[in-house]
């Protein structure tokens, strides 16, 4: 290993360590309510019985894991307890961690690309970002653009949210922060036209990545959902196999409706990934489990803070580690 390689490895290790810390910090609140409550339930001498399992199930449910996924976790837990003939309640946390980790490992999220690779013959990579109102699409796009910039890719953002007041202005500020170009039209313009312009601009400038911001829409609004279909069709005029990625942004604060959103959006724009935002702050890490375990789409990124570098590639194993991390964070 040459000096340069060793240097590079140190940097990589360091940055991975940093991002793990950020993750641990962001999940502090979830951990507090989740793992601490588990610990409380497992006082010394506690037997593994139905009432303990019911208690664990309740803790899972109140962390937004959802009834179905919680039941699934509990049944796997039971299976393991029976198989390994475990009697000591203390070891149940380790098993629970195992069970959750293995569920996530089976989910599509375990194959996430961490290097922002783009094939040369597939430029520009077209990313369509969609979601309901107020989940943080625009902010996420700013961060996503920043991630690609950091990986050395050129990025152009298309401001196709032409509905919400000042959406353009907001995205413009994020584009500046990330140091990328932006294509926009007046408020009220046809979003499909903005998309068409953006893709043409990207082709002309041979940009690596195109990220399209769209207006927030509730997934039960027929007309607005069809508008997404139109955006997809218009893209294909410039790049036949566009969009390459369709990311649905979900707010981690959202409860069980998140699953409904994913189902409805994928009907008009087949999802290739989910971005889960606002994971910091409140005790809602459980939503990740529900989504990763019950949807056929991988959770690609998670937002763990408000800063521009607070969007992370979702790593299920690191996530479980951070969730069960025992140390206490002084600064939270």
């Amino acid at each position, binding site marked *: 290993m040459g000096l340069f390689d060793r240097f590079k490895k140190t940097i990589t290790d360091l940055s991975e360590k940093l991002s793990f810390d950020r993750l641990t910090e962001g999940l*502090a*609140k979830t951990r507090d309510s989740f793992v601490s409550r588990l610990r409380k339930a497992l006082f010394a001498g506690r037997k593994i019985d139905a009432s303990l399992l019911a208690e664990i199930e*309740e803790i899972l*449910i*109140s*962390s*937004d894991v*959802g*009834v179905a996924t919680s039941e699934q976790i509990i049944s796997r837990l039971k299976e393991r307890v029976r198989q390994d003939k475990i009697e000591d309640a203390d070891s149940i946390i380790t098993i629970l961690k195992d069970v959750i980790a293995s569920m996530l490992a089976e989910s599509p999220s375990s194959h996430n690309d961490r290097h922002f690779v783009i094939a040369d013959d597939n430029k520009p990579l077209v990313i369509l970002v969609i979601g*309901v*109102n*107020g*989940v*943080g699409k625009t902010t996420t796009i700013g961060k996503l653009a920043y991630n690609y910039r950091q990986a050395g890719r050129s990025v152009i953002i298309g401001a196709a949210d032409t*509905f*919400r*007041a*000042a*959406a*353009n*202005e*907001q995205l*413009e*500020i*994020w584009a500046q922060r990330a140091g990328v170009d932006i294509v926009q039209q007046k*408020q009220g313009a046809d979003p499909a036209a903005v998309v068409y312009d953006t893709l043409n601009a990207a082709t002309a400038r041979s940009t690596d990545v195109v990220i399209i911001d769209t207006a927030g829409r*509730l*997934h*039960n*609004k*027929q007309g607005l959902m069809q508008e997404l279909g139109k955006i997809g069709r218009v893209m294909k005029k410039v790049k036949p196999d566009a969009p390459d990625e369709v990311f649905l942004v979900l*707010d981690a*604060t*959202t*409860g*069980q*409706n*998140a699953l*409904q959103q994913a189902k409805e959006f994928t009907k008009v724009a087949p999802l290739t990934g989910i971005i889960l935002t*606002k994971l*910091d*702050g*409140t*005790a*809602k890490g*459980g*939503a990740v489990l529900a989504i990763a375990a019950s949807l056929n789409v991988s959770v690609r990124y998670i937002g763990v803070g408000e800063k521009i570098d607070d969007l992370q590639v979702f790593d299920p194993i690191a996530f479980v580690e951070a969730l069960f991390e025992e140390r206490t964070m002084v600064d*939270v």
Partner: protein
Amino acid sequence: MFESLQEKLEDALKRIRGQSKLTEDNVAEALTEVRRALLDADVNLGVTTDFINNVKEKSLGLEVKGSLLPGQLMIKLIHDELVALMGTERSELALAPQPPTIVMVAGLQGSGKTTFCAKLAYSLKKKGRQPLLVACDIYRPAAIDQLRMLGQQISLPVFSKDDAKPLEIAKDALTYARKYGRDVVIVDTAGRLTIDEEMMQEVADLKGAIKPQEIFFVCDAMTGQDAVNTAKAFNDRLELTGVVLTKLDGDTRGGAALSIRSVLGKPIKYVGVGEKIDQLEPFHPERIASRILGMGDVITLVEKAQSQIDEKEAERLEEKIRKNQFTFEDFLDQMKMIKKMGSLRDLIGMLPGMDKALRNVQLDDKAFSRVEAMILSMTIHERRNPRVLNGSRRRRVAGGSGTTVQDVNRLIKQFEDMQKMMKSMSSGHKGDIARLQQQAALKGKMRQRAFR
């Protein structure tokens, strides 16, 4: 609205509905389903457990009276408990004895605070007040621009100040409001996380300085289990006076509404039901409880119709129908009125049982526009005297409205049928009408018996 919870409860209660006896077993079975439905609807776990225990306790000690089926009794119980959870009264905006009244909103990021502020201002303006919007979200990029643009849309002033802290902006806004006679001041604040101590302190300081009469927590109706904790944290710092529920036009099950109301004990004052500036409604706990149980929301529908349809206009119409002078012009007026009441789907959704039946039907508001276009393509003479519409006139109408002659024929046929029906109703088949009325009264009574 709440449709999934409604659906689930309906499923769970179907089993009990048909049964003649309430036993501990079948109550328990139905309640397991109800519990699951409530949890799936994001109702807080603690709230759900209390709810189930309450219903269980009350249902077992209950005597079956008169012609009521035990299942109906059970539905009544669940209904009453839901109403109790959501509060039994609706409350108006508290006004200051000395204007300006100050309203402050707070909440998490993306809950819809800025949009709510504009909607509230607009609804107050319609009632003759002179609101001032104040932009105190200095953090989110372009948040101030957003409020400014919304203010422009509804022609109301927006107070903002560059390079100033929220406290200073709000104080200056109050001075401005007093000087220019604005009687309601609506202060929009930045979205913040409850664990962000600095930001929570900021909003608490803001509250201390401007002493608002109303402090609203704006909550996304889709929020999950954590809604209660978040609302509590805001309440601890701000002593909220009410809650605003946004994005209720989605298909969310809206459990957050139940949870927050029952844990905080603060009224839900408004609900946001759409992206347009006039889509803000007062919260009616009774009605929404009824809706959850699949009884529809007839009161809202009736009130909506009443507010849009001019009484005199209605009398004029009745007169016309009686004299059989109903023309295409009246038809057009009718359609405009219905359109004013909202989309067809919204209206039908409020009728009992219809919501579920129509869930998967594509309701075409455009069909309305086509009919409208056809009528508008007729001359005034033709509208008043549909009989003159011969083949060549029909072709012209079809061409003018972008439809086909077949469409025009169908419209005229429907219109003639309607005229006939009206004629038969008004020309003294009193027996028919009386029978209809009797039936309607009977149905009303049955419903009252079942649910009051």
